[in-house]
């Protein structure tokens, strides 16, 4: 930084601008460095300076003084390493004497970098586009699952040929016929409760995105495990619809029927066999409970307990009805809970949203997809509620933000 003595008129104008004293620019546009330094109080008592100066030039003179110190200090900075106590920009020391500016006791002047105030962006942007993509992903996974079930059905060995496998739970508990209906009713209740809760959430786009992504991935995993090895039917009570070997049209119709019925036996849409490892009913029961618990207020403990009972009893009833092997249910529970907790831990911890040597959670195959969905979400999504239609009303609460106008 060149000393003030070397400044040109332009430099002076720039400096005046920077100091926030634009009113002097016009008047002092011919003033260069030395002239600036030679300004005295007397100059401010006569026009033109008297006209523009609100305080008799006090402020400007002071600034000029400071400027002199600054440039001096800049020059000698290296020699004064630890000598000046105030030489670290942690505070400013400025001593005011009796208003007289004549004494040349120099104080060190430290510049405080004030961060420019940016309008704060929302930490939880809605981004419905991403939720839409997650929804499409989930739909694709559901349809793929249905197709795979239809394919696997053709390969299930007939129950006479391959009897049900030995299962510890089946040895202990006999089959109850009404049990599977209970399981499905519980499942529908939980899904309904979750839907209502989701509609009432404020950040429904973010949470919806998470739900669709997790559900889609779980069903995708399920496709794989169902397809590679086909387990026989768990009980002789099963009525599997006949195999349509090669008849594509009938298979399509079957697929449509299943999708329309949501894959539930209650609706009569699920007459196909072979989709045992792992249990989709367990996935839905567990996942809806996890989401309900996660995104509802902590004090609703009775609600959480109710949903837990629904979920646990529903899972128990799956086994009681001998509709799935025990290993199907256990694996489904394991995968669902792990995926849910994995995803949410990564979403809530900023340090886990970047790949690094210590972040081993980032080695899953869906990490890039996760980053895409959660990159703009900062922090834990708060449990706030809001009626869906008052969304527009919410906007005019925005405070008006003022920012300093820069001249030129």
């Amino acid at each position, binding site marked *: 930084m060149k000393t003030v003595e070397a400044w040109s008129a332009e430099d002076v104008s720039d400096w005046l601008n920077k100091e926030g004293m634009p009113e002097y620019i016009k008047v002092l546009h011919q003033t260069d460095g030395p002239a600036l330094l030679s300004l005295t109080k007397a100059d401010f008592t006569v026009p033109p300076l008297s006209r523009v100066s609100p305080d008799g030039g006090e402020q400007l003179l002071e600034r000029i003084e400071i400027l002199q110190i600054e440039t001096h200090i800049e020059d*000698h900075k290296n020699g*004064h390493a*630890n000598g000046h106590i*105030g030489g670290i920009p942690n505070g400013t020391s400025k001593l005011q004497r009796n208003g007289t500016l004549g004494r040349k006791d120099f104080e*060190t002047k430290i510049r405080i970098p004030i961060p420019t105030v940016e309008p704060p962006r929302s930490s939880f942007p809605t981004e419905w586009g991403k939720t839409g993509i997650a929804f499409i992903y989930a739909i694709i996974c559901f349809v793929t699952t249905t197709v795979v079930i239809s394919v696997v059905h053709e390969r299930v060995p007939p129950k006479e040929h*391959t009897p049900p496998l030995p299962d510890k739970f089946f040895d202990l508990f006999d089959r109850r016929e009404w049990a599977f209906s209970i399981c499905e009713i519980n499942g529908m209740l939980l899904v309904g409760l979750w839907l209502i809760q989701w509609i009432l959430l404020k950040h429904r786009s973010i949470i919806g995105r998470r739900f669709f992504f997790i559900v889609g991935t779980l069903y995708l995993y399920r496709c794989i495990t169902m397809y590679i*090895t086909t387990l026989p039917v768990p009980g002789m009570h099963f009525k599997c619809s006949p195999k349509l070997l090669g008849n594509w049209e009938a298979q399509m119709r079957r697929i449509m029927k299943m999708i329309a019925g949501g894959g539930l036996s209650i609706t009569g849409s699920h007459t196909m066999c072979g989709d045992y490892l792992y249990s989709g009913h367990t996935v839905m029961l567990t996942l809806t409970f996890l989401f309900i618990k996660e995104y509802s207020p902590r004090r609703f403990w009775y609600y959480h307990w109710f949903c837990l009972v629904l979920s646990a009893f529903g899972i128990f009833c799956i086994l009681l009805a001998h509709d799935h092997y025990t290993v199907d249910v256990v694996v489904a529970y394991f995968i669902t809970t*792990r995926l849910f907790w994995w995803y949410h831990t990564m979403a809530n911890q900023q340090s886990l949203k970047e790949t690094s040597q210590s972040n081993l959670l980032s080695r899953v195959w869906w990490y890039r997809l996760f980053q895409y969905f959660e990159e703009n979400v900062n922090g834990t999504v708060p449990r706030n509620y809001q009626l869906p239609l008052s969304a527009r009303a919410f906007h005019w609460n925005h405070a008006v933000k003022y920012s300093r106008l820069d001249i030129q």
Partner: protein
Amino acid sequence: MAASELIEEDEVRIPVEANVTSLNSPAQTHPQRVANGNPTHHALTLSPPADDHDGTNSSERSGLCSLVLIQSLNRKLKRRCEYEKICAKEEHTDRLPDEWWKTGVAFLYALFNLVFTTVVITIVHERVPDKSVSPPLPDKFFDYVDRVPWAFTVTETNGLILVGLWLVQWLFLKHKAIVGRRCFFLIGTLYMYRCVTMYITTLPVPGKHMVCAPKLYNDSRGKIWRILRLISGGGLSLTSSHLMCGDFLYSGHTVMLTLSYLFIQEYSPRWMWWYHWFCWALSISGVICILVGHEHYSVDVVVAYFVTTRTFWWYHTMANTHELRGAPNNYLSRVWWNPVFNFLEKNVQTTVPVVFLSPRALLSSCKERYHTIGIERDE
């Protein structure tokens, strides 16, 4: 000096929390712009006096000046205010303590689970449906690839090589105790999960070629002999110790192959990429050969891979990410083994660095330990 004069003549009006042990910022006073010209002498008038004109002795002078300043400030502060003493951080609390006894506990846990697995295999063997009653289940891989008899030997050989490499690597690690603890814990947990899945549902044999030892219905003694034989042979078919069937979901061989590869990769230097690739190739070929040999269903292998990798990454992320410990929204801590994890990793405060000891250092550290033990005994 002007500044010290200033302090002498004025009272400290604003209590200052100053760090008198450091020469740097006596920070927390308010810089006050005086609008109306009234002088307010702040304690922060420790600003050094006019140093402007001679730059030559300025550093000395200012050094001296600061000293005088601080002394006077010190006196002032002692009179008026309380100040906080800031101690320098205590150096060298060991951030990676060894704690061999914890490793011992983890080893016992792993041993117990391995024995328990053997017991469960023996039990399950009694319940496996006969090949004639329950033929092998349809499996996609088996439809495409026919059985190759020697494939399983390849698997077991690869497994032995990988375990051997990992053992050697582990011996040369500096933080053996911590890494060993982790290895034992993961092995134990994965085998425990395996016990659960094997026991609850019994899959039939994957191929007609499998020779299952006859069932011993109530012969407890015979069963115990089988258990011992299986343990002593390490559960490998190579050693002819594994004649029992029923332990299909999920595959223990896949667990060992995957886990040893993960550990080898995690705790070796990054520049040894050829070593990583070699181990990866061993691991993958071993796993594929399990399927080629029709020794396990595909779902056994896939589930084993999934559970092993997830558990490994989960544990290591919990261990390496210190913001998670005690964080409120740490869902990773909701696993059932979180208390065990806290016990094992409580005193490990940083990521374990991959540091190796040279053979000489290794020997000398062993000697030292024996030497110390010798001295203690003498005393």
